[in-house]
């Protein structure tokens, strides 16, 4: 049963995998996440906003590098 979805960027900005450079990433490829789990942050207008998984699943790939530029609705991660 393959049911792939993507987690998309809620808004444009800079994408971060972890809350602090010294912290581990919120989620790694292969991790199982629940709906509402934080998988990254987006920085815009000097504020950080959480990017949450809209459904439960396994993160199969991150499609954006840490500190990459993202636009609204851009796929950030693949979820299976």
């Amino acid at each position: 049963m393959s049911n792939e979805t993507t987690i998309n960027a809620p808004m444009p900005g800079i994408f971060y995998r972890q809350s602090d450079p010294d912290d581990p990433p919120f989620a790694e490829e292969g991790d199982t996440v629940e709906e509402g789990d934080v998988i990254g942050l987006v920085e815009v207008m000097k504020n950080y906003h959480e990017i949450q998984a809209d459904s439960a699943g396994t993160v199969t790939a991150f499609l954006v590098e840490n500190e990459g530029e993202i636009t609204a609705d851009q796929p950030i991660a693949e979820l299976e």
Partner: protein
Amino acid sequence: MIEIRNGGVASTIQDTGRSGHYHIGMPPSGAMDPYAHTVANALVGNKKEAATVEMTYQGITAVFNEDTVVAVTGADVSPTVDGDPVGMWEAVAVEAGDELDMGFATSGARAYLAVAGGIDVPEIMGSQSTYTLVGIGGHEGRTLESGDELPVGTPSDGLADLKDRALPHEMVPEYADEETVRIILGLTDYRLTDESREALCTEEWTVTPEADRVGYRLDGPDIEFVEREQPFGAGPDPSNVVDLGYPVGSIQVPQKPIVLMQDAVTGGGYATVGTVISPDRGVLAQRQTHDSVYFESVDVEEALDARDTAATYLEEATDAIRD
């Protein structure tokens, strides 16, 4: 009364602005996109001066405690009422207890929510607009948060007469296509090298993540100033001039250009190399972070014509809504 369940990312109450206090350092604030703000008000029978909720990148979730009519304009935030999708740029009837929910902006950066009767917060220095940097106006001088309760004024028309109003489809802006904003060079564009003055008006600029109601920082080619011995009263940096008043919409270049928007500082010592003309500030306000912007140089005559054209178009839009 409206109860806020989710305040969004950066939502504030705005009207047409706090004019007349610029000389004491008070910026006008007010709706960043006057067209979307005014059309939202017209759709629900309000005067253009009525206060709306301006939402950036993400809409709010709100519950109404009485039957009313609302309109959402500007950036597309996919509004729903009790889960059912409703249109943008049209009057929408809501009943007491209904929940209006909006998502993230897919096209454009700012959306406006107007409610019949207007958001009825106190006027501070002649305006209901929020100026968050000093915490005045709007709701407690700040962005909206879950649990806030916003008073609503008395609607002007019978609510029943409002519910079929809509902006004609051809008058709905296509924000994705609007990347050119017109500027008048000056006040101190003489400080730029000829190459940089040329680059300002021909090269592509990109909106950075630092772009909000105060200013839009842009990324693009390096801007260079003519070498000179700095005059008395100007700072040591080549971008410094003797202090001057900053026009709203002016472009300063501390390193990367910043276009000063509705909540910006009113004066200082940076060279302002151009000013975005007032009818195009709303266009810039709808550009998202990472979107492109091109500056087109116009003269004062063209700028005045553009302002008249925009005012006439807005009048046509509000007339079309009322017919």
